């Protein structure tokens, strides 16, 4: 991003500056190599952890460093999003250097990295297989290579699903604000639409939900989790967008909701979407556990207590969740693997949940009273441990193919175009299928 912009319209002076920068960078690299060499020589081990978003590990790093005085841990990439994280990690793995000693792999990109299993250390060699009972069975299996012989990653969190809503807007529309009562408004997605129409009739100035893409994806993953267990790609990685019925069902349902004028029409993760949290331009948003931290960050302290969270329509579902892995290029695989086992242990997962509400993938952590009794003060003291933890053990994993992300982007962009009035609803599905096929090539 920065590189292309710095190439724009500069004269010879900029070239000089560029060369100077190159020289500085070159010398800086040299210095770095010397530094790490001498560090390992002196018995000191510096571990780097590469993450996106927020894993809530600060306290855990301190504990680990206290127990291992020769190890220091640095985290990189905190707060970055997947669309920047994934390409950088892919490049570093291909180049054989630059990736961290520990790297986070999200469910949507896990398959694509599993295809390059040679780039990752087998955690089984460092006792990782002993941790099997620490995880929900599908979460542990999800960290294994395709043939099951190699343990690439150990699970961190799962993306159990809830529904976040604005209490003030619900009150304005004459709807109940108590979270149990709100949860009872929408046992199914049809009920959710019905309540949305009631909300719309009250003209609060806000829309019912934020963006077509998010709600559509929530419905899709939820129904696909029940049957057949995959979305755009079947388990042999064939594109099945036109033959997997749950996709068209979720898509048509979303077209209906857009037609009803329930969507605020944002593009997810855009500046305008972010501003919408703060300004209260939508009343509900489907929220996996990790979304709570995002909402709090965007809506800010001024809106504390206005947001609340309850159960999602349609009963549960999973969106997101990650694994931690150790690239083979790490100079300290033993220590890195030990750190992974520590961070993904039940106690580590409970600590991460308390920090940023990332829901554990460990049954022991899910049963931990500390988690069950945990409330989130920002969300009007909602018992998030209970809301997200209940049913987490029954979650069904959804299989995603290696090109899941680009196909998902293609399909969700057609919904955005319908929201923008640029694509006729009648033509949308055909375009979604065509674009998905193009993207999957």
């Amino acid at each position, binding site marked *: 991003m920065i590189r*292309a912009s710095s190439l724009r319209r500069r004269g010879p002076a900029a070239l000089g500056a560029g060369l100077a920068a190159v020289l500085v960078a070159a010398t800086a690299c040299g210095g770095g190599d010397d530094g790490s060499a001498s560090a390992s020589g002196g018995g000191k081990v510096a571990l780097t952890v590469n993450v996106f978003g927020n894993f809530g590990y600060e306290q855990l790093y301190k504990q680990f460093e206290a127990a291992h005085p020769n190890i220091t841990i640095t985290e990189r990439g905190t707060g970055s999003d997947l669309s920047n994280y994934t390409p950088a990690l892919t490049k570093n793995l291909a180049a054989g250097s630059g990736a961290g000693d520990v790297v986070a792999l999200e469910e949507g990109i896990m398959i694509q990295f599993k295809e390059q299993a040679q780039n990752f250390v087998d955690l089984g060699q460092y006792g990782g297989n002993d941790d099997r009972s620490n995880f929900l069975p599908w979460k542990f299996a999800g960290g294994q290579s395709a043939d099951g012989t190699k343990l690439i990653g150990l699970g961190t969190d799962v993306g159990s699903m809830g529904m976040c809503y604005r209490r003030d807007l619900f009150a304005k529309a004459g709807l109940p604000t108590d979270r149990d009562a709100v949860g009872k408004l929408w046992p199914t997605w049809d009920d959710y639409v019905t309540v949305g129409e009631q909300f719309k009739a009250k003209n609060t100035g806000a829309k019912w939900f934020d963006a077509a893409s998010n709600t559509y994806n929530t419905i899709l993953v939820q129904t696909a989790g029940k049957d057949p267990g995959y979305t755009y790609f079947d388990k042999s990685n064939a594109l099945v967008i036109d033959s997997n019925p749950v996709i068209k069902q979720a898509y048509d349902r979303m077209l209906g909701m857009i037609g009803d004028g329930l969507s605020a029409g944002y*593009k997810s993760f855009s500046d*305008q*979407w972010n501003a919408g949290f703060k*300004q209260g331009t939508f009343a509900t948003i489907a929220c996996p556990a990790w979304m709570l931290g995002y909402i709090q960050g965007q809506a800010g302290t001024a809106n504390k207590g206005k947001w609340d969270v309850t159960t999602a329509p349609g009963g549960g579902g999973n969106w997101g969740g990650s694994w931690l892995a150790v690239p083979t290029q790490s100079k300290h695989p033993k220590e890195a693997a030990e750190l992974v086992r520590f961070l993904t242990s039940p106690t580590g997962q409970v600590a991460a949940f308390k920090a940023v509400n990332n829901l554990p993938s460990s049954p022991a952590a899910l049963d931990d009273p500390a988690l069950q009794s945990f409330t989130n003060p920002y969300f009007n003291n909602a018992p998030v441990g209970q809301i997200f933890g209940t049913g987490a053990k029954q979650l069904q994993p959804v299989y995603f193919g290696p090109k899941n992300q680009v196909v998902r982007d293609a399909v969700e962009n057609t919904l*955005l175009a319908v929201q923008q009035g*640029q694509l006729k609803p009648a033509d949308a599905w055909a375009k979604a299928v065509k674009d998905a096929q193009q*993207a999957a090539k």
Partner: protein
Amino acid sequence: MSTDVTTPVPAATPAPGPDRPGRRERFALLRSRADTKVSPYAYIAPFFVLFGIFGLYPLVYTAWVSLHDWELASAEHPWSGLDNYRQLVTDPVFWNALGNTAGMFVLATVPQLALAMFLASLLNRRLRGRTFFRLSVILPMATSVAAVSIVFSQLFSRDFGIINWVLGGVGVHPIEWQATKWSSWSAIALMVNWRWTGYNALIYLAAMQAIPRDLYEAAALDGAGAWKQFTKVTVPLLRPTILFTVIISTIGGFQLFTEPLLFNSGSSNYQGGSLRQSQTLAMYVWENAFVKFDFGYASAVAWVLFLIILVASALNFLAVRRLGGKD
């Protein structure tokens, strides 16, 4: 010529003593000749060495990669000849990106250079606080492009943007600027214009100040008004400068990347909108390389982009040369 110098040497062998000064002279002569002939190359060598490493090598290597089926993650990169280029010719997304790039280039460059010329001629007059104005026109260039894009995205925001608010005052419905081609192109072109007009104005100003004043006096004596003076004296004499700015703008305009990327913030921003309304060629290169990890195809697009820039620059060069008559 060199044989003339060397022939006396064998003849002088019987007397080695007196020969020494001759040898020394010869060496000095060679050295001075080497100094004039070789050392200029040594002086400019650092540039060419660095250019070779950071400019030429990537260029050639990209061409090499573009002739292969080169997926980043796979261990093998089989030769595929011109397959990537063949695919490109029939790729509607490529043609869409090319159209977007050219459209935004026109919207961003033509008003920009015209306005820069106008600003320069204003700044070239005797104004109070001249230095202040001259410095302020390049202020936008000193801001980071990311900051500019974020501020402009806010201005063009659908719900809370100032521009829609102002338009709302005269009864225009809120426009979703990312949604159509014309609106996204205009918004992005405005960012580019805002950022680079002052820079070009200063370049024009410097060139204008090098034009001897007596040319204008002579023109005035011949009865030329301000406009005639501008078109018949200023523009022809600025032609090399205009050429420079046009070429630089062409190169920059066709590589447009950061502004549209940040303008389309959010998921899959590299697609430049829900229907790729403002995806540029540079964004398409990025999409293929770093989203699809198809380095072979990305390299082919990058090479075609390079050739397009060469052709566009050449066309602009020819067009500008005709400006204001022949030399």
